[in-house]
């Protein structure tokens, strides 16, 4: 049932505040209010979302857990979703997706980042995160969420750092005092690699219907041993046929759980979230497909610059000089890797702007045009 929150601010005052804000926007045109407010304090921005780190702890040697207080534009998230987190490294803003690990109830965010080998952002956060650091945040995104009417029986399966979205679901269910049955099955190499050990035990105490099961793939000491197999399901959640299952973890775990559910005809009840590894650009050679998302056109990569490929596909993207100087052909690359024809530099990050006339696709690429 929806609860009517009493209005603390009278309606008239709100309207006045709003018209003051739009007057300020008009006075501060063309740059807008945020560009002035952030000079006073980066957390004052109104349209964009920032987060200030308020706590840092290191649960395992290769992870860092951050508590983040988002700025006012943050509207909350649903457990299981992810946010885009940005930091400036050597002058370049880098963005990665992380799933908050906290309950969706409550205003703070908790993020756990595993330092990847050669991971630019994860490595930077692992080394430099400290209270007071300001991060860029996006509104949350992603379909991997619990339905609004929570299922009665819920099986949560995760592996390694795939624990993050699933733990968020679990904490949310605990906060809600979920009356049904919940099993949280988590895979880690050894006991030392289990993130959130103490929290998990605490959660199990708070929710009577919850069982936390730790599976160690490389050592003894846990509730289960070895990699996922069907027998694990029968042991920890024999009712899994009648449950909704949420799964996130490394690819081999995902594959074997998927295969099991498929064999049982239960694919519909299995909800998954994949951590797609960054695409590895194939060297040389024109391979893959180029997709122009807005028009829905798709062509086989011919190895020519994207502007030519778009035109060959019958599109007329805006452009000017065709030599990389005027930036008229700048478009958003939503996924895939391109090589800059002038500098040879590879760009493999999702959601970055590129110049079509001097970008050559390497493998599959998707462009927002």
């Amino acid at each position, binding site marked *: 049932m929806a609860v009517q929150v009493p209005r603390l601010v009278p309606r008239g005052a709100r309207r006045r505040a709003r018209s003051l804000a739009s007057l300020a926007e*008009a006075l501060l045109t*063309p740059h807008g209010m945020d560009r002035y407010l952030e000079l006073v304090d980066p957390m004052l921005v109104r349209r964009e979302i920032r987060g200030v780190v308020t706590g840092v702890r290191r649960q395992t040697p290769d992870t860092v857990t951050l508590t983040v207080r988002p700025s006012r534009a943050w509207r909350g998230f649903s457990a299981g979703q992810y946010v885009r987190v940005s930091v*400036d490294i050597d002058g370049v803003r880098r963005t990665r997706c992380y799933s908050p690990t906290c309950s969706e109830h409550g205003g703070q965010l908790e993020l756990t980042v595993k330092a990847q080998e050669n991971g630019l952002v994860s490595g930077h956060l692992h080394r430099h995160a400290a209270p007071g650091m300001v991060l860029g945040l996006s509104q949350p995104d992603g379909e991997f969420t619990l339905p609004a009417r929570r299922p009665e029986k819920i099986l949560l399966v995760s592996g390694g750092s795939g624990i993050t979205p699933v733990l968020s679901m679990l904490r949310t269910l605990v906060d809600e005092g979920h009356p049904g049955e919940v099993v949280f099955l988590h895979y880690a190499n050894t006991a030392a690699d289990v993130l959130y050990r103490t929290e998990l035990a605490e959660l199990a105490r708070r929710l009577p219907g919850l069982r936390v099961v730790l599976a160690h793939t490389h050592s003894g000491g846990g509730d289960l041993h070895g990699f996922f197999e069907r027998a694990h399901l029968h042991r920890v959640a024999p009712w899994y046929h009648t449950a909704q299952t949420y799964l996130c973890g490394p690819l081999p775990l995902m594959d074997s759980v998927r295969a099991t559910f498929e064999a049982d005809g239960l694919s519909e009840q299995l909800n998954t979230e994949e951590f797609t590894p960054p695409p590895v650009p194939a060297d040389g050679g024109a391979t893959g497909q180029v997709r122009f998302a807005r028009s829905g056109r798709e062509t086989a990569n011919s190895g020519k610059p994207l502007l030519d490929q778009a035109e060959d596909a019958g599109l007329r993207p805006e452009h000017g000089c065709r030599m990389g100087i005027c*930036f*008229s052909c700048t478009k958003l690359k939503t996924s895939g890797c391109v090589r800059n024809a002038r500098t040879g530099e590879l760009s493999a990050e999702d959601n970055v702007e590129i110049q079509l006339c001097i970008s050559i696709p390497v493998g599959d690429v998707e462009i927002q045009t």
Partner: protein
Amino acid sequence: MTGLQDRLTPEQVEEFGREVDELRQRIVSDLGKEDVDYIQNMIRTQRALEVVGRGLLFAGFFPPAWIAGVGALSLSKILDNMEIGHNVMHGQYDWTRIPELSSQRFEWDTLAPAENWRHSHNYVHHTYTNVLDKDRDIGYGILRMDEGQKWHPYYLGNPVYATLLAIFFQWGVMLHDLEVEKVVKGERKVSELKDVRARILRKAGRQLGKDYLLFPLLTGPLAPLTFLGNATANLTRNLWAFAIIFCGHFPADVESFTEEETESETRGQWYLRQILGSANIEGGKLFHILSGNLSHQIEHHLFPDIPARRYPGIAGEVRAICEKYGLPYHTGPLRKQLASVAKKIVKLALPGGRTEPSPAPEPATVRRERELTAA
């Protein structure tokens, strides 16, 4: 005058292009945090000057406050347009992926909307630099700035038009994007300009609204003084921008080109044309900053998308390359360049000019080349 194609042999021009490319590559790979810090500091300075300037005008009844306010606001507008806006909108900071520094999103404190300007400036002017009938910055559609433009009695008013353009420069830049002369000639349809026009109305409305309505009204009884102060700041910026920009391409020795000369240019030939078609202005550090480093117009035209703060640092190398290939490197102090531009404006008001290519001294390299073949 030596044609563009005969300045250097094809081999030389390629070699020259490679050298310039190497220079570019070296800077591109060196870009980093310092460049971002620089521009962000510049932005901070500009915003502070703006706030201080606007604030002082609230005390505009006190003459020193009014003068200081107008000064700060003028500086703010100059920085915003030159060192920040012009350069950010060139994509010089797109590599940072910081939205506030993105060429596609930045909007500047002047009447012309960024999007229109990116087309007319970044694309048209920088691709077709000093190519007659292609580069619309030659004369901005109103002046006769090149001998190759056919004389017409209308041009008797050249000095008057130039003066008006300097005073109302931001209006000139705004209307420039409408490409009126192309519409008159039938090269563009009015309907194609619908978007351009709509953007102008929206942007200009906001700009005029804040400078000439909202801020004056906010100062209550001081409204006329604030109005005058804002107008003065805009005027100062206009005159300054006009001066810097006209000195970049129109001093006496700067060359212009025909479309035929520039057909199917290689990258090396394009670089060559940028050098021959631009001129620098000498001055101190502060002068360079206030000019948006367009005092290094030659470096800017070679590398329009490299952060402008790098231009002074590479000017020596560019000059050395020019000397090596026997190319001119046009430069001089502001007063010399301004005088040269003024002279041209007056001279071209009158009939005359080149119909035949005028003889110019052969560049050393071509001469050497000929001597070698003769030998």
